[in-house]
């Protein structure tokens, strides 16, 4: 595998990967996920047999501050994944030697719980269901926008972090009490519709990370299709008018070309 680069050990960082101390703007453009990346190097395994696609992913994820390994077939992917140490696996479904689903199933059978994102040209409803049933954590049909893939990988890498178990989410002076279903900003209660509450809950659970429109549609409405118009934008702007209007600084930001992010803009 001539194009495979083994840089899995943090002690030997690849010179071309972005140093963790690099300024956010150069590394991430306008994606705005700097804070989450700065804390630790995230390690990614991409199992993809198409060399051009794999190289593109490696380059793009490196620019986003990830350490990326590539595997070009299912067997190689499985053995690398089993060696462990990855934060997220990106697995293509149709792979030589061992298909993606069998790789994931084998991994899960051996008790490995590393989050897996399935990347596949098979993008219909039933394909997604099969993929998730096989043990995948997320499913992204090809072709994809890299911003979408990045946001989802970030979300997966953070999955199971301390925030998920907390009953209260806090961003600056915004507070969301998951048990009491109550939202406070600067000590003032904000009344939200149930769906708005779930929207904010999801955004705050991923505070500091870009959340895309399709991620919101999937996680808040449980639909996986692509809404033809800007329905999600209208929901978000409604939510924004409730939580940001009359308060400083604004916390719910639009990330152009990607989605939304909740973060303390003053930080």
């Amino acid at each position: 595998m001539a194009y495979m680069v083994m840089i899995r050990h943090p002690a030997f960082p690849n010179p071309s990967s972005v140093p963790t101390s690099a300024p956010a703007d150069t590394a991430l453009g306008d994606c705005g996920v700097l804070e989450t990346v700065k804390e630790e190097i995230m390690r990614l395994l991409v199992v993809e047999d198409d060399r051009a696609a794999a190289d593109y992913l490696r380059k793009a994820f490196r620019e986003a501050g990830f350490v990326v390994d590539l595997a070009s077939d299912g067997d190689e992917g499985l053995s690398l994944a089993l060696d462990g140490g990855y934060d997220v696996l990106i697995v293509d479904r149709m792979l030589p030697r061992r298909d993606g689903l069998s790789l994931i199933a084998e991994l899960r059978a051996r008790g490995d719980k590393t989050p897996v994102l399935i990347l596949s040209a098979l993008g219909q409803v039933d394909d997604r269901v099969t993929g998730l049933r096989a043990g995948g954590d997320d499913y992204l049909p090809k072709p994809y926008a890299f911003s979408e893939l990045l946001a989802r990988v970030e979300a997966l890498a953070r999955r199971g972090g301390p925030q998920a178990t907390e009953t209260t989410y806090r961003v600056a002076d915004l507070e969301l009490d998951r048990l009491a279903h109550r939202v406070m900003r600067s000590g003032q209660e904000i009344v939200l519709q149930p769906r708005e509450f779930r929207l904010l809950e999801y955004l705050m659970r991923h505070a500091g990370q870009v959340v895309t429109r399709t991620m919101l549609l999937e996680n808040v409405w449980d639909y996986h299709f692509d809404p033809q118009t800007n329905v999600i934008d209208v929901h978000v702007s409604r939510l924004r008018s409730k939580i940001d209007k009359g308060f400083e600084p604004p916390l719910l930001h639009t990330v152009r070309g990607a989605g939304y992010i909740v973060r303390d803009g003053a930080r």
Partner: protein
Amino acid sequence: MTALGRLIRTTAFKLIAAYLLAFAIFAASIIAYLGWHTQRLVVGQVTDAIETEAKILSQQYTIGGVNRLASIINRRSRQPGAGLYLLTTFTGENVAGNVLNLPLNFLDSEGWKEIDYVRSEDTDGHTSRAVVKVIFLPGEFRLLIGRDVVEREELRRIIIRPALWSVAVLVLLGVAGGLFVTRRVLKRIDEMTATSDRIMAGDLTGRLPLAGTDDEFDRLALSVNAMLERIEVLLAGLKQVSDNIAHDLKTPLTRLRNRAEDALRTASTDVQWRAATEQTIEESDTLIRIFDALLMIARAEAGQARAGMVPFDLAETVESVAELYEPLAEEKGLSFEVTAQGPLMVRGVRELIGQALSNLVDNAIKYSCPDEEDGVSRTIRIAGEPIGERARITVADQGAGIPELDRARVLERFVRLEASRTRPGSGLGLSLVSAVVHLHGGTLALEDNAPGLRIVIELPLEPVSGD
């Protein structure tokens, strides 16, 4: 393989042959049994008669000696239809009687015998068969008394022979019939094979011939024909998709290519390059969306998603889709009325139904906003309700509506009415709705909402199971 060889190798023919063989053995044994018993009866009468006569003649010999016996025999021999008589000395010289040509030493032993003989009065040498008894008389004379067994032979001629013949004819007819039946079966199978060969060669309009007899072949042919019908529809769909791809995907692809080419030729600043690249990505996203929609329609039409169908509450889907679009409608200044009487349990793929509903609501919003503001407040009504054993979903708008003539046409892929050409969209939304509704065994109707369009979908409700 010869035609006969083919016939003989068929299952039908082998069955018929086995059946015939069994039947022939059975028939032959019945005939043999009957024949044997009848013969025994006839021969029994003959031997009784001979026995009686032997007794009488022996007595006459005892009373009157050889001369008396010879005269009695001569008298009896001359009567018409008489039995057989022969009296000889122990050396074989004939004393009296009407039998000629006895085999040599025939009278050397006593007892019952069967012979072919010639009567002495017969000049043409006609032989007959007879049962005879040979008796040694005291005084070295030998007496033969016999009776023709014409009756027995007659019996054989009129009963047993024809019976055997009829069995033979039956077997022959059976074999012929078997060949005929087998040939008919083979012919129909050959017709079917020929048709399927033709279909395999690409002529999908071919159908298996029906004999109209409603037999098992007709039933098989009907079922295969229904299957072919389905395959033809699917292939027609596939062909339509490829035609669509050729026609409607090449247009945006050409646009995409032109744009890139134009950028290559004219763009000089970073800003221009960036704009061109962004436009290219946008165009390809449109293409991807069209691709996804086409694939989804094709899959729904092929019925592949049926395996993943589960019961779910349609009312919840109606509510959640309505809720998803409600802010958008409000932003466009439309009133939004949602009524959903739940639960409406149907069996299906919630994702697909949700997508279909969202297409409808999206359309309703899109076509409710007139290009020029006329100040009239428009309402979109979305309803889900049970009607008997079906769930009815209505999406009604007060927009321009669809002229009656165009209502069937808009369900086809890529069909966009002139009025909507200027608006964004691919012309696949309603095709997808139609495919999804049919996948779920439902009906889709486009009605006049006066003004506007009302779309009514009915899906079968999942029967409530008591157990």
